[in-house]
């Protein structure tokens, strides 16, 4: 029996700004993790990653990160990905500030 596939999202950094972004089901890049497409199928995940990696003028370093379904959309499962959703802990910089207003 094959192992159960852990759901994924596609994430990357914007080429120009370096900001963390997530690939949505509508093929746009969102700064919000919960707007990402939650991918539950391995083959589909690979297709979406290829699609992301092809967008060379928009993003850098696209990869698949583990995620889980939450009430408002996908949530990160690992602390690294959680930090990426908000920014550093020593200053109110990054998303936690940029998205607050």
């Amino acid at each position, binding site marked *: 029996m094959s192992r159960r596939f852990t759901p994924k999202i596609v994430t990357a950094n914007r080429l120009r700004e370096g900001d963390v972004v997530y690939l949505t089901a509508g093929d746009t890049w969102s700064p919000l993790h919960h707007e990402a497409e939650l991918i539950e199928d391995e083959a589909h995940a690979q297709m979406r990653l290829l699609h992301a990696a092809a967008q060379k003028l928009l993003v850098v370093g696209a990869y698949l990160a583990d995620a889980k379904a939450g009430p408002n959309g996908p949530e990160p499962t690992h602390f690294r990905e959680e930090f*990426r959703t908000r920014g550093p802990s020593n200053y109110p910089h990054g998303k936690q500030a940029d998205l607050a207003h």
Partner: protein
Amino acid sequence: MYSYSDFDEAFVRARVAQFTSQVDRRLDGSLTEDEFRPLRLMNGLYLQLHAYMLRIAIPYGTLSPHQMRQLAYIADTWDKGYGHFTTRQNVQFNWPKLPDVPAILGALADVEMHAIQTSGNCVRNVTADHFAGAAADEIADPRPYAELLRQWSTDHPEFQFLPRKFKIAVTGSPNDRAVTKAHDIGLRMIRNAAGEPGFEVMVGGGLGRTPMIGVTVRDFLPVADLLPYVEAVLSVYNTLGRRDNKYKARIKITVHETGAEEITRMIEARFAELRPLFGGNDQKLLAEIREAFAPPAFRNAPVDAYDAFYKADPVFRAWADTNLTEHRNAQYSIVTISLKAHGATPGDATSDQMRLMADLAEKYGHSDLRISHEQNVILPHVHKSDLPVLHAALVKAGLGTANVGLLSDIIACPGMDYCALATARSIPVAQELATHFEALKLEHEIGPLKIKISGCINACGHHHVGHIGILGLDRAGVENYQITLGGDGTEDAVIGEKTGPGFAYTEIVPAIERILRAYLDLRLEASETFLQAFKRVGMEPFKEALYEAESEKDAA
């Protein structure tokens, strides 16, 4: 200080122009990320967790006020109003945007600075004792040698694609403040029996996943042989170093696998070939460089005001006791400005603080600033009579913390708050340790202590040579912190010993407190430092203090 020659100027400008066009080509799609990545890294530009990061070299940690002001300007114009000084005497900006980086490099070139060779498998920024030219125990200023090495290694055609990165540190004093034994090449100035200065050459030191103390390959190298000898070391490493496995590619592994005796023989053989090829131009250049590092015109003035103030003001006295170091001129002091205010991010300075330090250096410090590998800023030459007014100005700007060499003077790498390689956070651990012990008012009682924190096995935070080292790891998806004790980064360098199982994020500060309370209980007298006590009693009492509480919990 050293000023760029026309050659240096043209070289740095040409590189800015080159990189400007490379960024344009990346942004218009002519370069892929795979093609662009090595080019941006050659110019110090990384992509981190939340943004790009630009790493700028501060050769041998020396800055002019003019340069410091330009860093402040860059911070305000293209970043978020602050800079982060690192353990390799570099400064990092955490939020530059790719299209702005060429302008930043241009602004750096305007003040004779650059980000060249701050990444990649080449000879990195050559570091030196931050008290160079001022320390009372110094044989000679190490910076002319560091500058010679910088010029020689910049764009050196043979050494642009080494098996792995290569770090050189130089100290001009027998007392090592530059952690030379943890570098690929460490150069420690000593005198031979005839009283002539030379270098003890250590090779193959390094921290990271395989920490090693450098092996002495030459007890005494005459200063005139420096370049051919360093070239011989690089040449042997370039041939022998492993390119099949990134984790075994540093020279420390080459030294380990080849054996100290054999590698010494190979270096000496190569040196014998290279030495005759150096016809003396290097020495001419060195003589010119040396002139640029001539000591300032020291003032001769009474120091009574300092003595009176020291007696009268306890706050000033506390600061003077921790943050001043003996200068070679008895009327002067070396001032360490702490970038470790309790609860602040170690090594960070705001643009306002940078400008103030630049102003103070100009007014009271013979226009000289240094960045230490311990992430503080140094004013190496301050007349003692100026210290009270200098201290008052620092206090006003939040830069007057009297904690140099104490518990809260912590080295911490950026960790998972910024770094893409990190496995755990380190900055908040440093912040909490500092504020926790400040609340307990214990750090002065604990006395000299070096805590060093790394957020991953690569050990940018030098945890292996901390008296207390903390290493943040990812254990099954949770931050976990491993403790080492007894490390030492001086001329008696020792790699710290692991205590045992690590601690969760919320447990690490209480764990450090247990270690330090055990130390306070077992020290023979107040003057026995933590490191001395550890050397005397060993690991057991600390282990007991550390894990006893846990086993009681288990038993309950």
